């Protein structure tokens, strides 16, 4: 990956290069599959990450997932298993210890460097190829093999199935916790369930885009979607579409190039966000939806 940068190609050709594209495509079939699965999971999970204000938690969980995956690499066990164990441990710790936002952020702040440190230690001791080491931090989608696609499919089924099951009460508890609790929604249990699903999603993402860039698929697409719509149907649909475009587009663009895959994914996802922000700003100025009473005067009119 990085070694290839030393060639004497012009820099732009290292970033975008479509020669031999047809021959390369079959080689990344697994990667495309993994990317598509991750984008589906990331888009859906991201909706709740936004609603529950968990962006920092995603980052914290991904560092521990990185530690788990690195340790797995060192001890020659399956990287997916390591990533999942690290993720779930972090997710449970955050879920149990940090029900209030302030507690949560300090716990994440404490866990994150610890996880990163453990990961760096494991990688330093690991005798294998350097590309694997960087892969866990910055992404290594080209290295996805069939067995890993199988593991990722299993995780994706659990996460998407779990989310669908708790979708309504989780939305209620996320955006309206007080009334949800009054209506008997088990908010605490749902919060833990979501942390576990989030942990699984992160474990998936770490293996594809790397620990440092997990947010580009777990937050940016959903954040972009909430800029242009407030519909409970369109937010998840658009988030998934944006995530798919970023992930698959990134993989296809990176195919002929000699730099890692992540910059493509993060850039596409960021550009989508910027466009949505622009659209959202225009809509906001116009009052989002047309109504007789302008929003600034707050006219709750008695009739």
């Amino acid at each position, binding site marked *: 990956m990085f070694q290839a940068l030393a060639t004497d190609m012009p820099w732009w050709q290292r970033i975008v290069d479509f020669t031999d594209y047809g021959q390369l495509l079959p080689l990344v079939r697994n990667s495309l599959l993994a990317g598509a699965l991750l984008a589906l999971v990331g888009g859906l999970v991201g909706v709740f990450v936004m609603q529950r204000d968990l962006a920092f938690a995603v980052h914290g969980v991904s560092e521990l997932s990185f530690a788990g995956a690195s340790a797995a690499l060192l001890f020659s066990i399956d990287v997916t298993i390591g990533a999942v164990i690290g993720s779930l441990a972090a997710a449970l710790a955050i879920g149990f210890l940090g029900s209030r936002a302030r507690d949560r952020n300090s716990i994440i702040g404490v866990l994150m460097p610890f996880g990163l440190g453990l990961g760096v230690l494991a990688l330093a001791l690991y005798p294998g190829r350097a590309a694997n080491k960087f892969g866990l931090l910055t992404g290594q989608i080209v290295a996805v093999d069939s067995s890993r696609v199988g593991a990722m499919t299993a995780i994706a089924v659990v996460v998407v199935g779990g989310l669908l099951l708790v979708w309504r*009460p989780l939305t*209620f508890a996320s955006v309206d916790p007080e009334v949800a609790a009054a209506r*008997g*929604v088990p908010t605490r249990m749902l919060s833990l369930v979501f942390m576990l699903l989030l942990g699984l999603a992160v474990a998936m993402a770490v293996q594809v885009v790397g620990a440092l860039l997990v947010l580009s698929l777990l937050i940016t697409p959903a954040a972009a979607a909430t800029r242009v719509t407030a519909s409970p149907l369109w937010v998840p649909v658009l988030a998934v579409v944006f995530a798919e475009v970023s992930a698959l587009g990134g993989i296809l663009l990176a195919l002929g190039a000699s730099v890692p895959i992540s910059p493509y994914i993060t850039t596409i996802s960021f550009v989508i966000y910027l466009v949505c922000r622009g659209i959202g700003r225009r809509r906001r100025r116009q009052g989002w*939806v047309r109504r007789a009473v302008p929003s600034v005067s707050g006219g709750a009119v008695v009739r």
Partner: protein
Amino acid sequence: MSPVLELAGASLAFGERTVWSDVDLTVDAGEFVTVLGPNGSGKTSLLRAVLGQVSLTAGRIAVLGKPPHRGSRDVGYVPQQRIVDPATPVRARDLVRFGVDGDRWGPGHHDRRARVDELLAAVGASEYADVPVGMLSGGEQQRVRIAQALASDPAVLLCDEPLLSLDIRRQQEVTALIDATRHATGTAVLFVTHEVNPVLPYTDRVLYLAPAGHAVGAPDVVLTSQRLSALYGTAVEVVRAQGRILIVGDDGHVHHVEEEDE
């Protein structure tokens, strides 16, 4: 027929601290009961007891003759207004929809649009049904909240400081709406508030929770200098002017009714 809400010898304590004790209160359908008292007097705890979130230390509480349980559709809950991030992807109609079936599992495939529209229309919020909640004014938000609470056709509507952080005009609008609602639907209202005056015209009875005891009765009977002085165990004066009430105490515990700024 059993009353909508019944408390008999009801007491609540957290550890050593008794919040209130021996409260007897029977609320009938369509009745408007205002719960007053200083901070820490257990007003919110009372609502939580009705919601089945806390258990009484002694005595009995019943909603429609049965002990309250979490998630009961017989109890509606209107919280105080709070700031919602304008980017939160929840529209007024979605908030109301939560009230209809937000507590059920699954993604929700049944079409509830007609029911939601009906509820929004009943509180005069149809106009901003598709506006994100974070972009509504405080008064508009509270209208939507009332529609949400009415979604389960509750027998009693618990209002937990719904007027807080609203200006006087909106306070009057929201209380008028709640009053109209109880006449239209026959739901009883248990209204916890610091602001006496907006609810005074509609209040059938007052439950006053205070450090040295509590009192139940018509506003004119309970809200007197003599009664409140006894409840607080210190001199309290109730001043009536222009149809409004001002409660003045000689220490910081007594709540003060805010001055009208118009």
